[in-house]
């Protein structure tokens, strides 16, 4: 008998993992995935949803999203919310790349406008934005300035000449969580953060020049300022070594804390501490600081993207209407208010490989978009489409306002390199009209789109279950990879 036999289908593409699955569960599990995805899903990921449901103070459901896969402790593509009264905070529920996220920039350009300059644009992006393993950012911070980056995030960046004041309006949290505290970030994390500020990194991180090919909801697309044929730019990166170190530091502290507070956890990597403990509060403030670093990072990259377009096309970025559509965090803990059994309750929402998808009316959404729900940006992989969706009331009711964050890896890097060669991939991309520039041939083979789950399927499941609805599809025309 498979463990999947214990799981009940509630409605199309929605499944319930009942409390009988694991006796220690304090909530049921919820899984948003299509039949095929369910069939192929690793049992380890289902166990992880159930394990998270065993943590103290969990509210409503432990949730798996359409792109769920096995992670360390917590699954990737998961959401869990805890009560501040008897609940916990866990660094494993965020992961190493704190505030890894996606930003999208619009333009008033069409493919025709840039067709002859594509090579130059790609070269300029590649040159102006440091990327790849062991890459240094190109700026030098003043003594202690890293603390301002950590405390003020994208606000620091704008004040220092990176981008426009109005950009801040269109970033989740306006690019700065005020409760961040740089004194809770170790010297080690700061030292890793200083040289890497303003760099893309490696792996699945990218900058893409894209084209809007399909609009699924004309009205909402108009509100987001997107239309068919428009050139857009997408940036996918996070908090670099700074965030990785904050996670490592606090995983180590939590490994002692859960024993100290006698928290019974089914897997050591779910190490956590009670919400009001010093350990949890220190992590929260350090994690917010790393999140701010990531927003500063994406803000600086935005500035250099605009500069690159300005230099190549000899036009002002404002004249090209290069405003920020939105910026989402997909690895983060947030303190949010949600309705539980008819009452508004303060909760600690962990999103690991999950995108916030707040529905219409929420104050956190910029006024310009508030009536239709927030933009949700779901990046594809090298050579595949990415999507813009909008948050919904169903997400507010069922998933603490959350949906998927991407495609999710299917093949290991070694397998990808066995199955694909960089030459083949470059040829294939070329035949689709996509230009690519990467720091190494290895990364091209490792990041082959065939090594990832099908993004179209992930987004479709989000749409059919209603936890975020599709607004627009964009396809890449040029990609830079670290």
């Amino acid at each position, binding site marked *: 008998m498979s463990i999947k036999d214990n799981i009940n289908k509630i409605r199309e593409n929605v499944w319930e993992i009942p409390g009988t699955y694991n006796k220690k569960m304090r909530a049921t599990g919820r899984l948003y995935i299509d039949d095929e995805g369910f069939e192929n899903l690793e049992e380890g990921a289902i166990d992880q949803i159930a394990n998270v449901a065993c943590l103290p103070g969990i509210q409503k459901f432990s949730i798996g999203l359409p792109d769920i896969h*096995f992670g360390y402790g917590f699954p990737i593509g998961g959401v869990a919310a805890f009560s501040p009264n008897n609940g916990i905070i866990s660094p494993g529920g965020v992961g190493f*790349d704190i505030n890894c996220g996606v930003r999208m920039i619009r333009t008033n350009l069409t493919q025709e406008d840039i067709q002859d300059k594509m090579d130059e644009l790609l070269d300029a992006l590649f040159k102006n934005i440091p990327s790849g*393993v*062991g890459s240094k950012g190109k700026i030098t911070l003043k003594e202690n300035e890293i603390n301002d980056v950590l405390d003020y995030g994208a606000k620091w960046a704008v004040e220092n000449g990176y981008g426009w004041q109005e950009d801040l309006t269109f970033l989740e949290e306006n690019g700065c969580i005020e409760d961040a505290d740089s004194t809770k970030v170790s010297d080690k994390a700061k030292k890793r953060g200083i040289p890497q500020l303003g760099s893309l*990194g*490696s792996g699945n991180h990218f900058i893409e020049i894209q084209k809007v090919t399909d609009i699924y909801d004309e009205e909402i697309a108009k509100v987001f300022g997107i239309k068919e044929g428009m050139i857009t730019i997408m940036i996918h990166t996070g908090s670099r070594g700074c965030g990785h170190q904050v996670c490592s530091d606090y995983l180590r502290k939590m490994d002692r804390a859960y024993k100290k507070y006698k928290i019974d956890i089914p897997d050591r990597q779910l190490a956590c501490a009670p919400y009001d403990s010093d350990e949890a509060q220190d992590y929260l403030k350090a994690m917010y600081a790393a999140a701010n670093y990531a927003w500063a990072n994406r803000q600086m990259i935005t500035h250099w993207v605009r500069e690159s377009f300005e230099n190549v096309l000899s036009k002002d970025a404002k004249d090209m209407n290069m405003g920020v559509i939105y910026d989402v965090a997909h690895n983060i803990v947030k303190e949010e208010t949600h309705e539980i059994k008819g009452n508004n309750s303060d909760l600690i929402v962990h999103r690991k490989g999950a995108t916030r998808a707040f529905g219409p009316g929420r104050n956190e959404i910029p006024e310009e978009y508030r009536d239709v729900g927030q933009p949700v940006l779901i990046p594809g992989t090298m050579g595949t489409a990415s999507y813009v969706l909008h948050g919904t009331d169903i997400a507010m009711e069922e998933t603490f306002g959350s949906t998927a964050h991407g495609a999710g890896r299917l093949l290991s890097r*070694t397998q990808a390199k066995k199955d694909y060669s960089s030459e083949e991939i470059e040829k294939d991309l070329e035949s689709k009209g996509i230009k690519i520039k990467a720091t190494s041939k290895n*990364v091209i083979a490792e990041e082959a789109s065939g090594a990832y789950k099908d993004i179209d399927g992930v987004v479709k499941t989000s749409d059919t279950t209603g936890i975020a609805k599709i607004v627009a599809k964009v396809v890449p025309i040029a990609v830079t990879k*670290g």
Partner: protein
Amino acid sequence: MKKIKQPFKFFDVTADIGFIAFGNTINESFENAGLAMFNVISDTTNIAKNKEFDFFIESEDEVSLLYDFLEELLFLHEIEFMLFSDFKVKISKNDNNFRLDAKIKGEEINWDIHERGSEIKAITYHLMNVSVNEGFYEVKGIFDL
């Protein structure tokens, strides 16, 4: 005396990469774990040994010692902009504490010469283990990429 057949090998993890490093002594197994790490980041056969760093670490058990050792290597790689290819480790135990003294050598990164591998984000605790198998030391771990 039998000798280890290989310094380390990798195993597949969907999103990341795992390693098992071998040694005739615990010291050697840790040294080979360092070697495995820099063969993920680059190719150690092409990294000169012209710059030396010394450090020590104290931890509560051997697994934590391994974690802290690899984390320190990652830290030095990132902030000193270095690649390492030579690792000398001496592990000792006093009372309930383990101490590791390391002397490592390498070369400053020059991506025109050095092969670009993968960026390691962090060391994970997943499956991390230090054991003795048929007289050989084996250390195991996963790098988050």
